[in-house]
């Protein structure tokens, strides 16, 4: 069944598209930030820096 959006279709589609883009940016930001932090922890681990508990820097659950 086709959805009829009437004369204001552009306003409705823009609203949903904007929400999709912003949510995609948020998800991308969280994923890339996680990769960036784990990468930096791996580099620190390779250079021999360990946490005060003695555990590896990359020991993240």
């Amino acid at each position, binding site marked *: *069944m086709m*959805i*009829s*959006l*009437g*004369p*204001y*279709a552009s*306003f*409705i589609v*823009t*609203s*949903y598209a*904007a*929400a999709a883009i*912003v*949510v995609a*940016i*948020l*998800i991308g*930001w*969280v994923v890339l*930030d*996680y990769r960036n*932090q*784990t990468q*930096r*922890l791996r580099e*620190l681990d390779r*250079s021999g*820096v360990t*946490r*005060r508990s003695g555990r590896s*820097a990359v020991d*993240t*659950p």
Partner: protein
Amino acid sequence: MTLIDLANPTRFLALSARVLPWLAAATVILLTIGLYQSAYAPDDYQQGATVKIMFIHVPNAWLSMFVWGVMSVASLGTLVWRHPLADVAAKAAAPIGASFTFLALLTGSLWGRPMWGTYWEWDARLTSVLILFLMYLGLMALWRAVEDPSRAARAAAVLTLVGAINLPIIKFSVDWWNTLHQPASVMRMGGSTLDKAFLIPLLVMAVAFTLLFVTLHIAAMRNEILRRRVRSLQMMQASRIAFSSDVGTGSRQENASKGAA
């Protein structure tokens, strides 16, 4: 496991790693159901199909205030109990809250043009939400401006609690002042004025967006904990280098003075 146990960042990382996939799956399922119901909701007799913007605008508007509420509780945790995860929670929530507020303003504006004949009006509701958005941006700038996270946390916590005064102003602005924005139609004394055909998709979308916030917030908190771990390890590394160079310089000076003698 109690809340106190969760205060340990390592335990939080372990627990959140187990919970996150389930939360993400529940969010996707609910969003799919909500979007399907929104797409096939009937047209409103006055607004026509533009009523579909409500299903995206209202959850974002609710969350814009809810996220600031979460940050306010976290700020109390920072100032009163000095909870280890409180300022992590507050900092991680700010960009997500700012995004929801931005979407509430944008979709409200896109809904306003065909219904009110204008994208923007400086009335109490719209202006108070714009102030909320600017406060989110100010808070994010504050976090970036102060290098030491614990000092930034205290300043941000005070600003967040002061900013919480804006929440009841936003909520009751439509009752206290004569505004272009419609009064509350879901959370009001005497029950919702919305027909079930609109109310059910709206509630599903509201729960879906709330789950989206919880999922993103937990993931962002994990990143913030890791960022602080990186920072403290880098400081340890820097102090070791400084210590070893001090020891090296000291022994060289000792040898030089022995040689001179």
